[in-house]
């Protein structure tokens, strides 16, 4: 069953067509990778799905209903969470608080109950805290313990990426969008994260759509690969299928030759 369906999606940026009548889908429990040369429209696709920019044409359906026109926060509460290509954390907040923010859509406490510190408020606060720490514990010992109270800016680059993923996971998504999750990581860290992506699906039951440049990651974990070029889908299939597709090779190599 399709969890996410994209139909005829189109987006222009002042004459430049970033996404061009794109059709695609992601089924429940799948791990799908979106690849393509720079400027192929991959991040734009994520921005469109999460409602950060409105599409010009086409429809995006999540669990069968259209989510076009919803605010990003509404889309998140339906169950789509994302990370960003250029890690965007809340730098002055602590590691734990960063993740706790993502529970906003799943909690209800308002101003009055915060002021009165009602029992319900305390319970919810403790629960939020627990869930945040749980999400952080997914990455082993890296983000726990004394790290909880460190500010996000003080983390190393790889840990910032992990924190961002933990933040997205804490919002109880059904679909997780990862934008180049291994960019800037060394081979060992990349390998580890590749395994974790599999684990997210197997243990947490998440469906994952990710953008990646590192073909070893794509090969290692993606069950299906969608190749974008100039905002169009030029190929789709398993890694081996697309890796031998003429058009894909041309998109990558042809571009490289002229560059």
């Amino acid at each position, binding site marked *: 069953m399709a969890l996410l369906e994209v139909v005829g999606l189109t987006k222009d940026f002042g004459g430049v067509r970033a996404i061009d009548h794109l059709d695609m889908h992601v089924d429940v429990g799948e791990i799908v990778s979106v690849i393509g040369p720079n400027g192929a429209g991959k991040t734009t696709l994520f921005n469109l799905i999460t409602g950060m920019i*409105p599409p010009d044409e*086409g429809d995006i359906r999540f669990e069968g209903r259209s989510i076009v026109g919803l605010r990003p926060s509404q889309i998140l509460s339906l169950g789509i969470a994302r990370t960003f290509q250029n890690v965007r954390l809340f730098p002055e907040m602590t590691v734990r608080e960063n993740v706790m923010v993502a529970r906003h859509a799943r909690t209800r406490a308002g101003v009055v109950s915060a002021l009165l510190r009602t029992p319900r408020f305390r319970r919810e606060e403790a629960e939020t805290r627990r869930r945040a720490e749980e999400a952080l514990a997914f990455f082993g010992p890296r983000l726990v313990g004394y790290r909880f109270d460190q500010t996000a800016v003080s983390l190393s680059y790889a840990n910032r990426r992990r924190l961002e993923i933990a933040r997205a996971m804490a919002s109880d998504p059904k679909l997780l969008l990862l934008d180049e999750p291994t960019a800037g990581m060394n081979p060992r860290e990349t390998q580890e994260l590749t395994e974790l992506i599999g684990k997210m699906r197997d243990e947490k039951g998440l469906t994952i759509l990710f953008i990646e440049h590192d073909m070893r990651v794509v090969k290692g974990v993606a069950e299906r690969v969608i190749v974008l070029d100039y905002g169009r889908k030029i190929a789709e299939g398993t890694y081996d299928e697309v890796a031998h597709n003429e058009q894909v090779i041309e998109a990558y190599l042809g571009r490289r030759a002229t560059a």
Partner: protein
Amino acid sequence: MAQLARVGARRAVQLPLLDGFVWLVRVAALLAVVWGSYRSLTSGRLTPGQWRDLVVIGLSQGAVYALIALGYTMVYGVLRFINFAHGEVFMTGTMAAFFVADALSRTGLWTDQVWIPLLAMLGVAVLTSTLVAVLLERVAYRPLRGKPRLIPFITAIGASFFLQYAFAGLFGVDVKNFPPVALFEGKLDFFGFRFLKTQLLVIGSALLMMGFLYAFVEKTKTGKAIRAVAEDQEIARLMGIDVDRTIALVFAIGGAMAGAAGFLWSQHFGQVSFRTGFLPGIKAFTAAVLGGIGNIPGAMIGGVVLGLVESVSPSLILIGLGIPAAHQLKDVVAFLALVLVLIFRPMGILGERLAEERA
């Protein structure tokens, strides 16, 4: 939920509550304008001549706003930064012009060769404002380039108050009256519109200066450099443009225009004090937003529109709505204009340059 989302929805259907509120304001504003104008015009309280006078007042007032607005708009166009202290840059020029006028009014020149003192006033006003603007950029803003937007903005608020009260401390807190210029006394008629000579001077010189500025920015090499820096600082730097110098130049031009506005102000209103810059500064910013900030012709149109709105609408709309002593509320009208413009057409009349910048 499902009916919210249409295939191909261009605009995000967001915040129904907020949108409802905005629509309410929109309708109320429109009703107020139409009903008020209708009542005023049918009541015949003002003669056509009086209406025309109001228009002339608005035009000349708007010309001064437009000149000051150029400084906001150019700096914004290049740095995406609101120079809150720009009103004070205008005030320093006006103040400098006063001291020249005060000194020269006691000499024979003032009566015999009044052009010389006037040119001296203009020159000194332009020079002072330019200098202050460039110094401000160098001392307060340049070290903060690239910092989060609010940090230089708060600095600019500090600079605004510093300049106001430094001038109060240096030159006294009293309101200073310019000596009258005999040459500019009297009126002229054009097509049934009565202009004071000073009003003509203000409108004419403002038009002239803005024409020059527009030509400068569009046609010259330096102008091209400014536009390049506005487009993308990094690429401009790679192209061999001295970005720091270009930005300083932008502040200098804005300062010069403010200085010129100061001179015209002195002939139009005849008064200056350390507070003179604050309100015109904010209104000029309003004018810049009204016309589309970052847009030079926009500043001009925005200035004129704001001047007209301010002078005409209390009599036209507010009195029609039965509000007593409506002229007291002309500043309210100006600020409301800002709020309404930002709600309904945030890109301004002519459109903001780089509109996608506003997140």
